[in-house]
């Protein structure tokens, strides 16, 4: 009951938040001159000769509110502008093309981070000051101090250069050729799932193999972070009165931990997990670059390098902003689900 009202209220709040995000992005772009802003809509070299026509067409010299209105109309129609740099073409299309690689990485990395982080944190807290706790804590400090780019290079050096088990990219060369040749159909563009859908298990296996190293280098630091937060919040929950009262009811250790302590301890971890997942989705620039994965992160990095591609940077920023707003919504709903007190306010 309270939950439904909360979700509706939260969804309605989404609208002004997203408008706010677009306003912010729009005002940053106002720093540029109309000519520079016109680059957003240039699709060919011929058009470059007639910039005034574009400025005229998209009202780039008109008052700010008209410009915003014109721009937001274009955005709502799916026109985020055109990339001049390769991959050239519509920005939206390029983002959509790049997304599957990042999504594939994220849907594996995020659960690994969240589940193992929580499990290790709980174990560590429950066995406080025992051997397993010390091991987890020391490992998480070490993990936390590993920069992911360094770990990525190290992993590549070991498993690619030295052992030759698995290389960078999303697939082996022969597999990459196979998936673009008919009759292989790319239903989802997620190689792991497409492999299954086409009945080609080896594609899935190969794709998974290529995901191991980037996922490892992405997750180590985040897991370490979640472990530390989960452990301390679990330790705090375990000192609460309701833990003693649950035991006094006759509940066993397992139920007390899993039902009473963990749910309360999860609250701070939910925020963290949401932010980490959003960060993964918007592309982990360095990891994608190191493992030459054609995802959103490497796209954004490429667009931002001088000379910058304004349309690309703008499109990516907009995409990131909207994504973070949505992730925040999910986090808030998860909060309210876990903690009834939040449904009130």
């Amino acid at each position, binding site marked *: 009951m309270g939950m439904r009202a909360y979700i509706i209220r939260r969804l309605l709040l989404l609208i002004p938040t997203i408008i706010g995000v677009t306003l912010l992005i729009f005002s940053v772009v106002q720093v540029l001159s109309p000519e520079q802003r016109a680059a957003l809509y240039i699709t060919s070299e011929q058009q470059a000769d007639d910039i005034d026509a574009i400025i005229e067409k998209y009202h780039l010299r008109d008052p700010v509110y008209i410009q915003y209105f014109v721009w937001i109309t274009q955005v709502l129609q799916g026109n985020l502008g055109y990339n001049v740099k390769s991959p050239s073409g519509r920005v939206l299309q390029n983002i959509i093309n790049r997304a599957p690689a990042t999504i594939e990485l994220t849907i594996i990395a995020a659960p690994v981070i969240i589940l193992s982080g929580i499990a290790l944190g709980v174990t560590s807290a429950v066995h406080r000051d025992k051997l397993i706790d010390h091991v987890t804590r020391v490992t998480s400090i070490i993990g936390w101090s590993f920069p992911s780019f360094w770990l990525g290079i190290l992993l590549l050096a070991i498993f690619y250069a030295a052992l030759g088990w698995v290389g960078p990219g999303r697939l082996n060369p022969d597999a990459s050729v196979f998936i673009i040749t008919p009759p292989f159909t790319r239903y989802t563009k997620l190689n792991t799932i497409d492999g299954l859908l086409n009945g080609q298990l080896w594609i899935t296996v190969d794709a998974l193999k290529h995901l191991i190293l980037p996922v490892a280098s992405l997750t180590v630091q985040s897991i370490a972070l979640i472990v530390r937060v989960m452990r301390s919040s679990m330790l705090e929950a375990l000192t609460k009165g309701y833990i003693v*009262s649950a035991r006094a009811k006759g509940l066993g250790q397992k139920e007390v931990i899993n039902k009473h302590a963990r749910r309360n301890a999860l609250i701070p971890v939910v925020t963290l997990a949401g932010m980490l997942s959003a960060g993964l989705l918007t592309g982990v620039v360095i990891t994608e670059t190191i493992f030459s994965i054609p995802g959103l992160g490497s796209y954004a990095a490429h667009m931002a390098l001088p000379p910058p591609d304004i349309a690309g940077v703008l499109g990516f920023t907009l995409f990131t902003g909207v994504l973070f707003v949505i992730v925040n919504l999910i986090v808030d709903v998860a909060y309210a689900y876990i903690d009834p007190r939040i449904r009130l306010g």
Partner: protein
Amino acid sequence: MEKTIESGDLLDVKDLYVNFYTYAGVVEAIDGVSLLLKQGETLGLVGETGCGKSVTSLSIIVLVPPPGTIEKGDILLNAGDKAINLLKQNDRTLMNIRGKDISMVFQDPRGALNPVYTVTQQVGEALLLHRREEMCKRVLQNLERDIPEANTLKRFIYNCEKKIYEKMMNKPKSPSLRTLSKIPIINRYQGRLRNEIRKEVVELLRIMKIADPERVVDMYPHELSGGMAQRVVIAMALSCNPRLLLADEPTTNLDVTIQAQILLLIRELKEKMKSSILYVTHDLGVVAEICDRVAVMYAGNVVEVADTFTIFKKPSHPYTQDLLAAIPRPGKEFKSIRGEVPALISPPKGCRYHPRCSKAMPTCALVKPQVAEIEKGHLVMCHLYKR
């Protein structure tokens, strides 16, 4: 050696020692406490903050929080024909005793309720643990009633549910049941049990005199007032008709009017349920109100035990006398006890009260006094009285 307990006694705590191993040193929180609780009586456990009242009650339910350790002693619980030594049982047995035979009400009712679960969920948990069979029986009775009136399809479903509940009664831990309870749609059969539990919780809340129990059962702890929360905690403790209720300062955090209501409620429920109560408090007024007998604790020792009337009329241990004199009364000079409660990390030698005692003698500082029975049922631990 088999320890025995007399049939009229419910709980016999013998020579209990509890230490807390802190970084600063070993705190001897409980130093040889012996207590006897008869069937159906209310024993008040009084003393200053930090004298070990709460630790004593937590020891009885074997939940002394680390770094506390029960060093030695026996806690015998009358279990019909034999005595169970609570300190020698494994976790499984203890889990069966907690909540069912012995339950506890805590000082801070809000803290004792988990903020993320509703009242039904928390009170129902105890019911599911200890009164599962009874609840299943009720569900089966409902099914028996419904089956003849149902149409063919429904009759089939009801019959399936009946089989499941019969199994639940006989073999609640069977793996097939556990699998069944995890399959969506099929596990809807649990709804009947849930309904039954909810009804029972409403009933319990009604006994606790909570207004509008139908609404309160679905509330979360943050929606309850302090008095209501304490009633819910008491409902939780009494849900399985325990033989012994440990009440650890249940009214300390409530305001005075609510305090009076809760005291009245506890007294009424005690009559109704025939439970014994160990009532821990520092409030002598409350003791006079509801206790049959009183044990006075000081710095980890029980220094005097007597019935309530005797404690107030003829206090014999100097500490009890000083404690009673320290109650502020109109028209009387207020006397506080000199000195401070000793830190139990290095308790005074001999009688632990001697540095503050106005009647201290040379031996008091050297020899720990023995318990003397000065009248029948009136025990004093003081050198002034000879055995």
